[in-house]
């Protein structure tokens, strides 16, 4: 039933593009019906190629509440987190043509957008970054460029592996992403020595790398 979306945002019919499924209402938790990473990729392609608003709506339904949640975990007040989540989705709409499925899943790409928006808007700092097209970069070693399926598949494995980490390791990994503080403060917060934080991080990364098929 596309009637709702089409009434609100009429979309030109393009037979070449696979229609995304009906977007779920935003307030409803999506855990039960979360589509896989490949579907997300198809939606981003539809946004990039056809400026497909129904696909955007579907992406919004999935990612905006997670970006908001991520920003709130990092201490942003709900209203600001909401504004930035909307900004992040606008950014996705504008940069969809830059998304490279060989490099990362849509979820990872959205994470980096949200991370950078937060540094810019909340911390008011610059974030020096490398342009992946920089001619100075030596070409990737090893087997040729991975295709999008592999990136998605690899992240599926990573997600499963994260669930198998012991709780003390998952805690330090989470704090690396959801706490805006250096590791010595993380150590203080968890009331464990800094060396322990570092060794837990190392163990966690070793385990995750092994799962992702890359030798440390």
């Amino acid at each position, binding site marked *: 039933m596309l009637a709702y979306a089409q009434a609100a945002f009429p979309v030109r019919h393009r037979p070449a593009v696979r229609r995304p499924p009906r977007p779920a209402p935003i307030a409803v938790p999506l855990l039960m019906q979360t589509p896989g990473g490949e579907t997300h990729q198809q939606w981003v392609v539809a946004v990039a190629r056809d400026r497909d608003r129904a696909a955007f709506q579907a992406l919004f339904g999935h990612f905006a509440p997670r970006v908001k949640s991520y920003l709130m975990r990092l201490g942003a007040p709900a209203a600001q987190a909401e504004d930035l989540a909307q900004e992040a989705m606008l950014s996705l709409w*504008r940069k969809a043509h830059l998304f490279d499925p060989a490099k990362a899943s849509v979820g990872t790409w959205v994470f980096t957008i949200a991370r950078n928006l937060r540094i810019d808007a909340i911390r008011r700092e610059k974030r020096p970054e490398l342009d992946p097209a920089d001619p100075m970069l030596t070409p990737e070693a090893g087997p040729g460029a991975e295709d999008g399926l592999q990136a998605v598949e690899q992240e599926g494995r990573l997600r499963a592996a994260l669930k198998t980490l012991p709780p003390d390791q998952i805690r330090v990994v989470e704090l690396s992403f959801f706490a805006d503080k250096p590791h010595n403060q993380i150590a203080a917060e968890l009331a464990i020595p800094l060396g322990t934080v570092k060794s837990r991080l190392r163990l966690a990364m070793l385990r995750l790398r092994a799962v992702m098929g890359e030798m440390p």
Partner: protein
Amino acid sequence: MSILHHPDEELLLAYAGGASGEAMSLLVATHLAFCDQCRRAVAEAESMGGALMEALEPAALKPGALSATMARLDEAPPPAPARPLSRDGVPGPLRPYLSGGFAALPWRRMGERLAYLPLFRRGGMRVKLLRGVPGTDTGWHSHRGTEFTLVLQGGFTDATGSYAPGDLQVAADELWHNPVADPGEDCINLSVTTGPLRFKNLIPAIAGKLFGF
């Protein structure tokens, strides 16, 4: 040339997760310009960020959020922040902080053989470029805090090893060392320090104070 001395897991994770401040981000991003291996490690860490974000309990948005965003889709986009490409041997992430190539910079001289250029200070971190002609001996020193030194051009050697372009040396406060610039090109380093250097001898100690190391 392959890089021997890399940022540790913790620095790469802090960069990928967005926890590092501007000084450390500049250091890591500039290292990435030299290092394929760490670029992959950061990409992996970003995938972890993506996976962790996906696993969060979604936070409900306000009722009008979607339509408010949809209404803005046709707005003109704000100018995207520039990510300059490397030029004249200056890695891209560093270029916004410099007025030109290494040869054209307003270096401040410390004697005949050493020069430096302060870039910025933020959050207790001092960021500068250091330059030494081949054979320059910087004098025995250690640090209050930690000194991160990323080689951009040339190289240097001390008791801990040799450092070539792209290599990162992390010197904690217990390390007394005496880096000497390698033969060849001038050695140019990006330096981030969390505290002033401590020199063993009086003259460099006074010079250090004067020059704000």
